[in-house]
């Protein structure tokens, strides 16, 4: 995990005392942690611990009842998803949420929507500045396609692709937005060993080459321990541990949560 020019900076995202309930069910209670600029931060925990809920709070799909989120120095309690996207938060989903009818190219291009400046009148004409802008976007998309090694499936409708490749396209769409903070919800779920290794490599490269801050949820402990700088552990909606992989690994509460406690 020691690579060339990685610098971990100041706090980019700070979660303070977040509490989220659905009716009577409490999904998150009083959770606090932070994500520093340039790091890979993992959120782990058993099923139903509230990991995805946490991610959904950060990107604005859920609105927590209590607590505050500080992102890039601005405090907020809630936000709408498209606003989060506009502020540089991109994400992938646990169950792939790609635009199945579109090609790989169009899917990744859609990630650049917020970067497109020209109104549709100019684009319809496809002339002058609009043409230049279009070419610029195409170039950015091609770069991502090369980066993720998916040149061969460029024109294929993504609905027809195998699962592992769909996950990769989804990552590509998130990258196309050139995010400051990338949220990955179980990027390796349901993959075979080879696909997992590829995905690990991409995540590390994204972090290393683009300096993107990454917060990810993952179940595969080996992967989490290898990838991340710091790990936060949730159980039943509460934070039970927070620290480097080594610290977390030796934490008794974490061991209990994962292996069970003898009664």
């Amino acid at each position, binding site marked *: 995990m020691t690579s060339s020019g990685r610098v971990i900076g100041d706090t980019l995202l700070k979660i303070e005392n977040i509490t989220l309930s659905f009716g009577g069910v409490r999904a998150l209670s009083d959770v606090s942690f932070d994500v520093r600029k340039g790091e890979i931060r993992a959120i782990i925990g058993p099923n139903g611990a509230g990991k995805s809920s946490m991610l959904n709070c950060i*990107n604005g*799909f859920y609105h927590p009842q209590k607590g505050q989120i500080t992102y890039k120095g601005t405090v907020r309690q809630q936000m*709408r*998803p*498209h606003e989060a*996207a*506009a502020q540089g938060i*991109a*994400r992938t*989903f646990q169950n792939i*949420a*790609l*635009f*199945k*009818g*579109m090609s790989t190219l*169009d899917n990744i*291009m*859609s*990630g650049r*929507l*917020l970067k*497109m400046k*020209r*109104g*549709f009148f100019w*684009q*319809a004409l*496809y002339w002058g500045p609009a043409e230049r802008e279009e070419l610029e976007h195409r170039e950015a998309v091609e770069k991502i396609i090369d980066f993720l090694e998916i040149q061969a499936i460029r024109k294929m409708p993504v609905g027809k692709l195998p699962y592992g490749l769909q996950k990769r396209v989804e990552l590509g*769409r998130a990258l196309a*937005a050139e995010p400051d903070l990338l949220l990955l919800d179980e990027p390796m779920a349901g993959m075979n060993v080879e696909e997992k290794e590829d995905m690990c490599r991409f995540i590390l490269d994204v972090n290393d080459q683009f300096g993107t801050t990454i917060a990810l949820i993952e179940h595969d402990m080996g992967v989490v321990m290898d990838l991340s700088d710091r790990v936060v552990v949730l159980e039943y909606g509460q934070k039970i541990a927070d620290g480097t992989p080594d610290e977390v690994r030796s934490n008794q509460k974490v061991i209990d949560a994962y292996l069970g406690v003898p009664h």
Partner: protein
Amino acid sequence: MAFFFEVVLGGLLAGVLYSLVALGFVLIFKASGVFNFAQGAMVLFAALTLVRLMGWVPFWIAFPITCVVMIALAFIIERVVLRPLVNQEGIILFMATLGIAFFLEGFGQTVWGSDIYTLDLGIPKDPMFILESVFDGGLLVDKLDVFAAAVAGALVVGLALFFQKTKVGLALRAVADDHQAAQSIGVPLNYIWLVVWSAAGIVALVAGMVWGAKLGVQFSIALVALKALPVLILGGFTSVPGAIIGGLIIGMGEKISEVYLGPIIGGGIENWFAYMLALIFLLFRPQGLFGDKIIERV
């Protein structure tokens, strides 16, 4: 032979009108998964607005004003009806559009009156002969029908460009595919809904204009929407080319069966032919000719 082609051509031109109405349905269904029962009422409302405005100002002023009215209507529908119902089941949104339909029919007739108005677009209604060199005596077509076909063609080209070439079009296709994912890449759902309802409103205006010029602007225009249903079943609810071709097939089928089967099994085929065809499609190809294939993963 010339007579056969004349029937086919007449049918195709009539079908264009069905396509225009179906197009409005497809736009909204694609972007929001809502079956908009109010499309017929929107056609009526737009036509009434246009025809009454034309009582005061010439067409080239009345048309843009009506466009603005339809966009304002989309804005209100988004604010008052759709926004409070976000993330509700499709059936609930459908019921809401039923409400919009009744409201618009009543409101439109209260404001603009419920008489039958003639809409004069300045296009001569007299028939003309074409292709006289190919067929003996030529083919008889209605000039208004030709005009309608040209308008529909222009509209389809415009919509296709809009969907395929522009940023908003890309956002629209994204929303049509997956709401959550679209939001995560920064598409504001409310804005997209406003755009599609406006587009559907303007398509309704064009449909209302052409129907109104042909039949006069009257309440029965709202019922034209019913004819769009079989068109949609044929073409698929999610396909723009499907709506066009579905409309053409039904228009042509109606005329051919009326002319050639009518004398054998008694007339009036035109009234039920579309529904019969839709029924057959529902039995054997429920996704329509061009709709997305329905695959259930088990």
